[in-house]
């Protein structure tokens, strides 16, 4: 088979004593993919990554690397490399020695390893720092050394555990692009761990959203953003308004829902639901229009509480008649189309077609 998945995780369970850190994880990661594990702190991302690297035993289940079972192999026999969260550079070796370490361990001669290390350092633009010790480098430079060190032995899969979290915002954005670029260039499968949803959306081919040791949703960035499968994903990815609703009537694929304050909303739905169900509806703030005239399309009524300028956008905070808080985002560039109303003003909110999503759990 030409296209074996790079990594298959099969029914993997991880327990620490009584505590279940991972509950039956199933994953299949393609070759050349930029795959991201995304979730809040403590959800088990690092544990899963460390199981793939070999630092943690798998309590139950199996892990395959290009079809070969690796979960029993010690870490130094797995052809995967890791970029550690705090880099873990060898402090007593200079940059070049750090980068050539893995190559030497693979049996390359010292001179070959050094030459290859120089090439890697060129790739991450650190050639002039080759003789420095890690402590003499800035955080961003150390990060790139860690990257070069992990890439030098040309692993089949590169594991990255929140590699950018210690960098300041600007550097982080630059490194995001650089990483993405490196991944394309080398063709190595990246498994990237982050708790930053924006970072995940920017970089990934596919994302697995995790919480409480489970994968909540797995898919392409856009898919997850636009079609979150449950309230956790909707809430965690991007900004959203979650409203509690009750199913009032169903006609075809359209459902009429009742909000708390007595207002109604029509929503398209595929999931199996029945009349009387209590559900949540998720609506992204940028897919709402506010107007001060009820143009009959407007379904929700509320009052403006505050407007917050955040650079590219303006966020308006509304209080719906139901009592729910509601966020609306207008891009700064189309202020003409989406008008901003002063606090205290009564307004009508229109939901863009297809923007409201009914979530079963």
């Amino acid at each position, binding site marked *: 088979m030409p296209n074996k998945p790079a990594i298959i995780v099969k029914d993997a369970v991880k327990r620490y004593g009584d505590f279940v850190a991972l509950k039956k994880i199933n994953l299949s990661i393609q070759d050349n993919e930029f795959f991201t594990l995304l979730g809040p702190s403590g959800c088990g991302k690092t544990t899963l990554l460390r199981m793939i*690297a*070999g*630092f943690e035993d798998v309590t139950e289940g199996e892990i395959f690397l290009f079809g070969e079972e690796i979960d029993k192999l*010690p*870490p*130094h*026999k797995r052809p*995967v*490399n*890791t970029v*550690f969260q*705090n880099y*873990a*550079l*060898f*402090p*007593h070796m*200079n940059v070049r020695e750090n980068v050539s*370490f*893995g190559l030497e*361990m*693979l049996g390359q001669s010292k001179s070959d390893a050094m030459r290859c290390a120089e090439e890697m350092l060129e790739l991450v633009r650190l050639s002039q720092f080759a*003789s*420095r*010790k*890690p*402590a*003499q480098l800035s955080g961003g430079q150390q990060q790139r050394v860690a990257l070069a*060190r*992990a890439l030098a*032995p040309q692993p089949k899969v590169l594991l990255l555990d929140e590699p950018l979290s210690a960098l300041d915002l600007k550097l982080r954005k630059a490194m995001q692009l650089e990483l993405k670029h490196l991944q394309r260039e080398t063709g190595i499968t990246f498994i990237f761990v982050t708790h930053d949803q924006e970072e995940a959306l920017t970089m990934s081919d596919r994302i697995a959203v995790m919480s409480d040791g489970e994968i909540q949703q797995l898919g392409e960035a856009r898919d997850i953003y636009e079609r979150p499968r449950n309230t956790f994903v909707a809430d965690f990815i991007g900004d959203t308004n979650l409203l509690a609703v009750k199913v009032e009537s169903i006609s075809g694929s359209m459902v009429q829902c009742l909000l708390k304050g007595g207002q109604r909303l029509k929503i398209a739905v595929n999931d199996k639901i029945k009349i009387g169900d209590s559900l949540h509806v998720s609506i992204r703030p940028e897919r709402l229009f506010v107007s001060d005239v009820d143009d009959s399309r407007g379904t929700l009524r509320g009052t403006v509480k505050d407007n917050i300028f955040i650079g590219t956008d303006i966020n308006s905070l509304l209080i719906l008649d139901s009592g729910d808080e509601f966020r609306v985002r207008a891009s700064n560039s189309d202020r003409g189309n989406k008008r901003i109303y002063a606090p205290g003003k009564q307004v009508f909110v229109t939901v863009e077609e297809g923007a409201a999503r009914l979530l079963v759990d």
Partner: protein
Amino acid sequence: MAGVASKGGEVRSDTYRDSRTWLLLPAWLTLVVLVLVPVSLMLVYSFLTKEFRGGVVWEFSLAAYDQFFCDRGLFGDEPCSIEWNYITIFWRSIWQAGLATLFCLIVSFPTAYFIATRPQSTRVIWLFLITIPYWVNLLIRTVSMRFMLREEGPVNNVLVWIGIIDDPLQMINTSFAVQIGLFYSYLPFMVLPIYAAVERYNFTLSEAAADLYATKYVTLRRVIIPSIQPGIIAGCILVFVPSLGAFLAPDLLGGAKNFMIGSLIEEQFKGNAGNWPFGAAASMILLSMVMIILTLYARQQSKALGAGS
């Protein structure tokens, strides 16, 4: 070495500029009263003339150093040829102290590593257990060791009982006994600094090494040991230096054949047979040797550090 991180200690802040002199006073006092004065005294005494029945005559003399290095025949009137007696004792002492340091290192590293990798809560207990024997006075411990090692002592009894040997071994008054004595006397001075270094060691580095295809052995040699090297060196100094000057173990366990510098010096100041200037001279020679070894080490360290940057 640990690189930049170990360079601490430079005072940069101006906060204490005015009071700095006062705050440094205890340090200066310690240095002067406990180091400078005694060493100077020793130096001066080594150049004085000996008085019979101990003590000195305040008259300049090179006799002590002459006695150490020169063999002038039975009546002391021949030209100087090298005196091997004392040099042999020195050489034996260095050899014994070096071996004791090596054995301490071999035993301490796994011990310290083991303790440092226990859960935080149990580490204190292990350290406590390690240090308990050392609450007993060194003299008493050494005497007890004599009992342990003598011919009808428990060590021989057990060995005979197990059947490893048929007749009790002569262990007392051998260099082996001295070795055991030195090893046991100074073991914690090796364990504690290495423990401190291993405890500070970032174990993710071992994972990083394994991740980069290093076996356990290579990780130990190329990552762990270099990272905790300062602790190892501190431990080696702390064991080697006192072993070199030790006199209890050689006296009580080694007998006359296994004389070490410490005993030689001790003898010069004990009772009526002593020779103070000679004892002082031997001490000065011992001190210079330790200084030379430490200086060479420091020189090599700064070179190694300099090469990195």
